[in-house]
């Protein structure tokens, strides 16, 4: 998928959670949202993009994507 679109969407989520004063809770919030609502294909693509530097991702989005769980390709 268009990675710019995925980055924008991830940043939109991070922007919502940025107001959370507890930083760990904010990171969890973004990560949990991605896990519960995003198709694994999209998560995987975003994670790969992050691994390559993740340019354009907001810091909070970066942190969330870092620990994002993505099921192995075979099981999905």
């Amino acid at each position, binding site marked *: 998928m268009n990675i710019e679109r995925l980055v924008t*969407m991830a940043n*939109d989520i991070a922007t919502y959670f940025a107001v959370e004063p507890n930083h760990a809770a904010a990171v969890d919030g973004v990560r949990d949202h991605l896990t519960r609502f*995003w*198709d694994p*294909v999209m998560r995987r693509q975003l994670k790969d993009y992050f691994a390559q530097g993740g340019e354009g991702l907001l810091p909070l989005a970066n942190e969330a994507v870092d620990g994002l769980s993505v099921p192995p390709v075979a099981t*999905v």
Partner: protein
Amino acid sequence: MLSIVEIDYGTPKATSETIVELEIDGRTVHVPEGTSVMRAAAQAGISIPKLCATEMLEAFGSCRLCLVEIEGRKGYPASCTTPVAAGMKISTQTPKLAEIRRGVIELYISDHPLDCLTCPANGHCELQDMAGVVGLREVRYGYDGANHVYPKTKGGGENPLFVAKDESNPYFSFDPSKCIVCSRCVRACDEVQGTFALTIQGSGFESKVAASQNNAFLDSECVSCGACVQACPTATLSEKSLIDKGQAEHTVTTTCAYCGVGCSFRAEMKGEEIVRMVPNKDGHANHGHSCVKGRFAIGYATHPDRINTPMIRAKISDPWRVVSWDEAFAHVASEFKRLQATYGKHAVGGITSSRCTNEETYLVQKLVRAGFGNNNVDTCARVCHSPTGYGLKTTLGESAGTQDFDSIEQTDVVLVIGANPTDAHPVFGSQMKQRLRAGAKLIVIDPRRIDLVRTPHVHADYHLKLKPGTNVAVLNTLAHVIVTEGLVDEAFVALRCEPEAFAKWRVFVAQDKYSPEAMEAETGVAAALMRGAARLYATGGNGAIYYGLGVTEHAQGSTGVMGIANLAMATGNFGREGVGVNPLRGQNNVQGSCDMGSFPNEFPGYRHVGDDAVRHSFEQAWGVSLLGEPGLRIPNMFEAALDGSFKGLYIEGEDIAQSDPDTQHVTAALSAMECIVVQDLFFNETAKYAHVFLPGSSFLEKDGTFTNAERRISRVRKVMAPKAGYADWEITQKLAQAMGYPMNYGHASQIMDEIARLTPTFHGVSFEKIDRLGSIQWPCNEEHPQGTPVLHVDEFVRGKGRFMLTEYVPTSEKVNAEHPLILTTGRILSQYNGGTQTRRTANVMWYDEDRLEIHPHDAEERGVTDGDWVGIRSRSGDTVLRAMISERMQPGVVYTTFHFPGSGANVITTENSDWATNCPEYKVTAVQVTRVTQPSEWQKRYRAFSDEQQALLDQSVDTLGQA
């Protein structure tokens, strides 16, 4: 004419719990205090003659026909206006009463045409019935005197009292010569619809019914709801369909397929033909009222544009080949299998419809999850109320409105934000106006001056005319006032909400930046107004919030919904009648389609696919293993189509090429797919990009249920055979079978039985129970066997209510020199959504093109006058509409509706979306508006493409004809 099957008790039902005993014609009768003598008699089976009285309306006491004698009282009181009293002894039939009544009817008949045999009301005319009841045998006055009946006087001159028929309204005719001036029509317009379009003009013998200032009905303020036609006791106001077809012979009770109010109707039928639709007095959502769409705009169902044969083609540049159902099913199955074998299991998906029944929606998601083996299923709620699902689930624990419509009867302060009920939810809009006229206060938060702000006998106490895109700022500011001025319902919050989350929220909204003064420049709302509105909502008694797509269709749609829930929690406005948070759903079955597991991440009942216990229950019932990861949402499907990984889409009753934002992006995605299957009544915009067309069935052609905005499940009943042979659920079932996944339902009720087995909030639902109770509001289960009108009564569904932090983040869609105006979108009363249905009815007489509403100041700056063609350009695209200069707008904001595909409203809207759900930001698009002389480039391409597709369609029909 009233319903042909309902019994009219003459005056409205009384609600008192005190029971009064009295005697009528020697019979002892028990009725609630406040009941009229007329109604008490009717309930005992005693019919008192009447003409100006009907249960639809308050008693009026003008016809003098319902007089009775009461022991110990003088004279002959009208039974409609006389309330019962304990111990009353009433006679309804005495020689004196008979004489008076006969005299009354004699006068009526002396000024009434005697064409009963050829009159449309024949068989159900109340005047005719009363003449029979009183035994009228002669009219001593003759028929030659002053009258309203004949165009000419006896002497051959013009009769000044005669008024010719008004046939201007496409759905009903007005024949003043048959009018008995009972005022029922005028009162129906006032009391039921609340438009005050009709009046009695003149006095004495010269008094007559007139629409507005003696206008033709079509030109008047009349909104064509039909309440007057229903109330009319003679043929003065008659449906044209009744005039054409004659009286119906049976009725079937069913549910309207337009908006989320979900009105109950009695379809009055002759065989399989509808004579007229009459709103059901016992309908729990509408109580006998309707709007122009539900009552009259049903002609689309039998429109010649309906396609009634399956068709396939290899490429969209090919003509269609008309095929048998079996061939169509086999073709789709083989294509989808091929796509999955070539591109992977995830290369296909489905879209369920909010216009189809719960049972049909359930089957489509079942086909996708169990048959396709993925979770790529979504629904059009993605583009309307998905933020409602997310926001209310997060804060309250249930993705649904909290009240029933009747709850508003107990509301003291009505807060309407981002909704326009008098246009988009007209029947509930009328109920709301009644409540406001009875004294409830009103706060409207809307960029436009919607009708509700100022309408006869309703004036909003506060209209916060905010800038589009600043809902969250306004909600936070209201919360700021409530928190900082000590207006929080501390006891409620302490008892019912999570303390930590509340403490965090209190600090958050108390920040200076959310003070009304600090936010004034951002929201455009004066601080004093903001403070006043917040105080009124917090302290004015029962506060109820009604909201619509003006809240959800924003980049911060979900945040807005949570902001609304926060406000209601902070003020203790949950868990009883008169309060709550009430999303007004757009389509008839938006709530239902969401309930039925249409989202890629949720099984029926809003349970995440990752929940092992839930998933196992479905695996066991469906006999397959299911995926525990979310699938693609509609916009994700488009992205995946464009990158080549998503190739096949089964679309039931949706028109994404028209309804979804950024049209050119959507059509590019559709063009990139290899097998698009459209199941619809009509060859819609999406069908132009399709490879398979499966003809669907209208709501009149099948059994099932719809769930309205109140969580009310109502029956849809088949009144005619499906035009193409199958109900939509049968088509999905056949498709599943062709794909090799077994489905063997014999009736829609069996699908509901399965839904009930697998969904805790539906455990107690069955067709049998709905038939028995009339309708059921879910949750309906062991705990709530009769359903649940009000949610969150003793505790929230999630346990404790959870305040969410709702930081205001301005949208990235900002005005600049290139795009200096904000475009926002909405609906109009006579048209419905993409217009697929209403454009194929006479409703186009009220509205036949989308217009661009623009403030006089913005128009003048651009040299635009009313009716000019204007180009509207955003960063996504451009289109051309005619301008309508309107003081409703604020400077800097323009508005259009989206009912006509050629208007290209969605060519302009962008890919921006709600952070949580990807619901598009339809309500905020930066645009420039300029005077132009010709259609936009997109419109020219659209016209050419549509013509080409129509030609291919026509060719296909020819092929069949030659075969």
